[in-house]
């Protein structure tokens, strides 16, 4: 059916998108259309499609700004939300939307959703092992007994083998880490005793804290992890994010595992992926608040943000701050700074943009104003 529709569409010289062809094919099937009817359908769809298309000169940016901005005013200031049942905190609502368009380097609540490859998807044991490799654990989590011995001037820690087994950690790895971090340490099976560099009570107490806080497992930048069963498969949600390191891990699904940190997506998967991430995150934020914005507006924003190969913010430090025209920049923010700099450098404004022409009182190059008229050459 799809091939048939494609052929008819070609014959009518219409350039339809893939999804439109699919829809027509479905409709044709549903209503059992014959060839003439299909012809007529494609003809009418073509007409409607041409009419719906955006014409050159339309102020799409302004429309996008209004379409995102208006629902934005209705967003609640309720900033925090719990993602599902787990006790993971995720910034949502207006603050999150601002974070996305500002292209913040450090977002307030980075989080990852880690999926697993087919063979491990239902393997709880494997997932728990990975979760403990990813999640941060400190010595404190695996201690059986811990005390400071002031008489002998050392810190004694007894490891709980059960806790280690429960966390699926490797005892030798822990010992290695301990030996690397502390020079003066004596190891007798699961009994560790640490000696301070200088012998003073102050040093001893500092050492005790250091021992307890020693990280014995975990991926950099990732804190707590939550394991959850979602629709017949195990998924790990994290507090903090490190996409590059997690994707390298054995058994992790390299297709679906994602983070909400757009800069990290850009670094690991490239600009195009960052563009998709922006669209996805922005839309998810709006959806969560029960607001609907047509994706095309968000796509336009994402396209502008990624147009020059890296993620740039909307605003002073990004798109608006890098405009070619002095007057356009000056009219946005930091007027004095821009005018002063431009005059020192001797910048030239070619008056090709909208804002410049509004400032000097000329028709703007938009809509009818973007069309030039000349007498026909004879």
């Amino acid at each position: 059916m799809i091939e048939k529709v494609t052929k008819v569409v070609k014959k009518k010289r219409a350039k339809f998108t893939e999804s439109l062809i699919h829809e027509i094919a479905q409709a044709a099937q549903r209503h059992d259309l014959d060839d003439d009817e299909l012809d007529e359908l494609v003809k009418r769809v073509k007409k409607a499609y041409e009419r719906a298309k955006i014409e050159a000169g339309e102020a799409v940016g302004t429309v996008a700004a209004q379409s995102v901005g208006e629902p934005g005013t209705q967003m609640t200031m309720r900033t925090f939300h719990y993602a599902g049942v787990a006790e993971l905190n995720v910034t949502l609502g207006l603050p999150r939307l601002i974070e996305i368009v500002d292209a913040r380097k450090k977002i307030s609540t980075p989080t990852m959703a880690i999926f697993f490859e087919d063979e491990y998807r239902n393997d709880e044991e494997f997932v728990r092992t990975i979760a403990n490799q990813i999640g941060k654990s400190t010595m404190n989590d695996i201690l059986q007994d811990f005390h400071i011995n002031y008489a002998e001037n050392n810190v004694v820690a007894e490891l709980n083998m059960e806790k280690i087994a429960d966390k699926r950690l490797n005892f030798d790895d822990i010992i290695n880490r301990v030996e690397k971090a502390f020079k003066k340490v004596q190891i007798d099976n699961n009994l560790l005793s640490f000696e301070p560099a200088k012998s003073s009570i102050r040093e001893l107490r500092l050492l005790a804290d250091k021992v307890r806080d020693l990280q014995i497992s975990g991926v950099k930048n990732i804190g707590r992890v939550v394991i959850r069963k979602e629709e017949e498969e195990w998924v790990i949600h994290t507090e903090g994010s490190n996409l590059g390191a997690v994707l390298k891990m054995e058994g992790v699904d390299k297709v679906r595992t994602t983070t909400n940190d757009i800069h990290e997506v850009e670094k690991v998967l490239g600009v195009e992926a960052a563009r998709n991430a922006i669209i996805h995150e922005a839309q998810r934020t709006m959806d969560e608040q029960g607001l609907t914005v047509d994706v095309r507006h968000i796509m336009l924003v994402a396209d502008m943000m990624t147009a020059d190969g890296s993620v740039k913010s909307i605003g002073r430090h990004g798109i608006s701050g890098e405009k070619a025209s002095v007057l356009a920049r000056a009219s946005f923010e930091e007027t004095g700074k821009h005018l002063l700099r431009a005059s020192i450098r001797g910048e030239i404004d070619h008056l090709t943009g909208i804002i410049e022409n509004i400032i000097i009182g000329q028709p703007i190059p938009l809509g009818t104003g973007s069309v030039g008229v000349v007498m026909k050459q004879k």
Partner: protein
Amino acid sequence: MKKDILKHELVPDHVILSKSEATKTLKKMDIHPEQLPRIKSDDPVSKAIGAKEGDVLEITRKSSTAGKFVTYRLVQD
């Protein structure tokens, strides 16, 4: 690992166009290469497929409105 990222669901298909294909597409759109959006030559995907500066990449995105959408980016340092 290098090729792994190309399989990720967020990464659309990137294909390097040959010189003649690139000229043809640019002509069809009636634009200069500088008018295309950019992609950095040290972008993870550029590196994975071995794109060099000046190449034009054809990117086939999955689109929620059009189903499939073809766009282009110029590789730039």
